[in-house]
């Protein structure tokens, strides 16, 4: 039992509730939101230390032992993601301070942001599949409001589509849970894994597994991503950056958790399906990224390519593949937030997202230009930046397990990603300087700090990846050996 585990969930929710009471004082809300997220990150650091010393940390809520109560489980994988979530969230908050606008701040932007983080952290920590559904809903309901906050036409249009897709996927999730409960009689992840291993994964259980895959694919943007480009380009930058960095990753986390802990017995059906979907996702996403001439669209399609690539590593069910996926997942959360913030800053400066309407930004904004360049290289996995290591491991994983086509598509699409981002760089930063300081629509004042932090992080992660190696290895070890997780949760010595 370790009571620290609950903190990443209750700190943001209590802070959010306090903010609703003090709705008039924006300054208080700003300070409290930063404080809440930073302390969540600090808790994650403490937990990571404890896990590397003593193994997986468990909290049985209300003292009800698993599988009877709801357990919170902090394994290395989940806790690393919580730490990265906190870092990204702080940067998006710093960006929001300057750019979100007084109107949105007055209408509960900060509480909603914290409720979103509550849902994300809860999804990472929970050890119970129904609790996962509840945490998903906490996250989704906040995202419904965040996406429509401000009420412009384009936002309303996107939010209706977004809500409808997610409501339906929530229903499918409930259907899958109902079937799972009827077949196994339990909802606890560890207990489910144990029972599925005991009775064997027959056709019916595989069907439920695929139903779960559909649900999580809808959230992650794996193949079923048609709602994503429209919804992620509608809200303001700070919000779309946090969506791009976190929401799809929660779906990916759920896929990894279910298909490495519970349904890993029939990889030639489920994991091959994930591989095929990942390949299609990468190709379609890359085509979209190359085809459009609009910053928002290019960036959202890049989110889709990233999802496909991470799941290509997941599909291999090998140590190399999942190690790569973990490195790439951490990298992707940071660099997607970074590139969205950069793109948002460019749109903020020029007042347009169309690439052919501006050029030559580098003369007035050299820092912005070079950071964009670094982010672009990192996004496509050029060494020594953070994307490289993940890319190497995922490719190695696909080659080791014989999925040559998957690795090949991954490498090919990463070239297309590089092209699509360089297109923004070349068109937007090179060439004639169209705008002068007077005709610019906004300033970069205050926006450079969060961007600088994230750029420094992507360089540091690339150069110092040995520093996090022990932690990633521990996470991989737990994922590849489900019995470690099962024993820890069920308390089997």
């Amino acid at each position: 039992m370790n009571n620290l585990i609950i903190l990443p969930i209750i700190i943001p929710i209590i802070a959010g509730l306090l903010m609703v009471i003090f709705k008039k004082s924006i300054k208080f809300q700003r300070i409290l939101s930063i404080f809440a997220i930073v302390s969540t990150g600090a808790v994650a650091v403490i937990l990571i230390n404890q896990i590397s010393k003593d193994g997986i940390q468990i909290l049985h809520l209300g003292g009800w032992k698993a599988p009877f109560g709801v357990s919170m489980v902090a394994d290395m994988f989940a806790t690393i993601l919580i730490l990265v979530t906190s870092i990204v969230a702080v940067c998006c908050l710093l960006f929001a301070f300057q750019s979100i606008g007084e109107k949105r701040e007055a209408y509960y932007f900060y509480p909603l942001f914290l409720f979103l983080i509550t849902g994300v952290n809860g999804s990472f920590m929970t050890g119970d599949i129904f609790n996962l559904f509840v945490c998903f809903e906490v996250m989704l309901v906040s995202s419904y409001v965040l996406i429509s906050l401000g009420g412009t036409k384009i936002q309303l249009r996107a939010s209706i589509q977004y809500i409808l897709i997610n409501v339906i996927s929530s229903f499918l999730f409930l259907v899958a849970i109902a079937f799972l409960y009827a077949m196994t009689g339990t909802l606890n992840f560890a207990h489910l894994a144990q029972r599925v291993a005991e009775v064997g994964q027959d056709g019916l259980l595989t069907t439920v597994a695929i139903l779960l895959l559909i649900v999580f694919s809808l959230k992650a943007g794996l193949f079923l991503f048609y709602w994503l480009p429209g919804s992620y380009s509608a809200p303001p930058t700070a919000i779309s950056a946090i969506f791009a960095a976190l929401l799809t990753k929660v779906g990916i986390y759920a896929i990894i958790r279910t298909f490495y802990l519970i349904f890993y017995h029939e990889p030639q059906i489920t994991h091959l399906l994930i591989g095929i979907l990942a390949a299609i996702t990468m190709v379609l996403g890359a085509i979209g990224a190359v085809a459009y001439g609009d910053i928002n669209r290019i960036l959202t399609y890049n989110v889709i390519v990233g999802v496909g690539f991470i799941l290509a590593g997941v599909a291999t069910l090998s140590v190399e593949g999942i190690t790569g996926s973990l490195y790439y997942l951490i990298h992707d959360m940071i660099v997607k937030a970074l590139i969205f913030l950069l793109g948002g800053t460019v749109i903020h400066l020029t007042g347009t997202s169309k690439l052919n309407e501006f050029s030559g930004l580098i003369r007035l904004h050299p820092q912005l230009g070079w950071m964009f360049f670094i982010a672009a290289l990192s996004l496509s996995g050029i060494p020594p930046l953070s994307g490289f290591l993940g890319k190497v491991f995922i490719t190695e994983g696909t080659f080791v397990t014989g999925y040559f086509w998957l690795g090949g598509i991954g490498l090919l699409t990463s070239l297309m990603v590089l092209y699509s981002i360089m297109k923004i760089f070349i068109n937007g930063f090179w060439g004639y300087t169209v705008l002068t300081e007077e005709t610019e629509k906004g300033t970069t004042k205050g926006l450079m700090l969060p961007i600088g932090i994230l750029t420094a992080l992507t360089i540091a992660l690339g150069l110092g990846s040995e520093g996090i190696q022990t932690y990633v290895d521990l996470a991989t070890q737990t994922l590849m050996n489900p019995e470690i997780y099962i024993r820890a949760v069920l308390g089997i010595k």
Partner: protein
Amino acid sequence: MIDNMETLMSILVGILFAIGTYLLLTKTLLRIILGTSIIGHGVNLLIITMGGLKTGGPPFLGRKETNFTDSLPQALLLTAVVINFATTALFLVLSYRAYKEMGTDDTEQLRGMGDE
């Protein structure tokens, strides 16, 4: 012909899903929302059916009782109902706002090409 309650309920769930899906495929926003609501009812019934339907058993396992009702699906159902309720309310408010803003609730016209 149909000898137990579970089969009957499963058929009912199927019918509710069919009606909901039909409504989802229509063009009017309000009908779509009603469709999600009906599918939601279907899902709730499915959860309660999957727990097994019994009459007369208490929800606890006692020393003498061998016939007990599983109370967990009811707890799940209650949570799902509350979440479904909140989401539907939010969805209705949003669609009303969209109707006010854009003057139509026809999804064909809501797609809007001009100002993108």
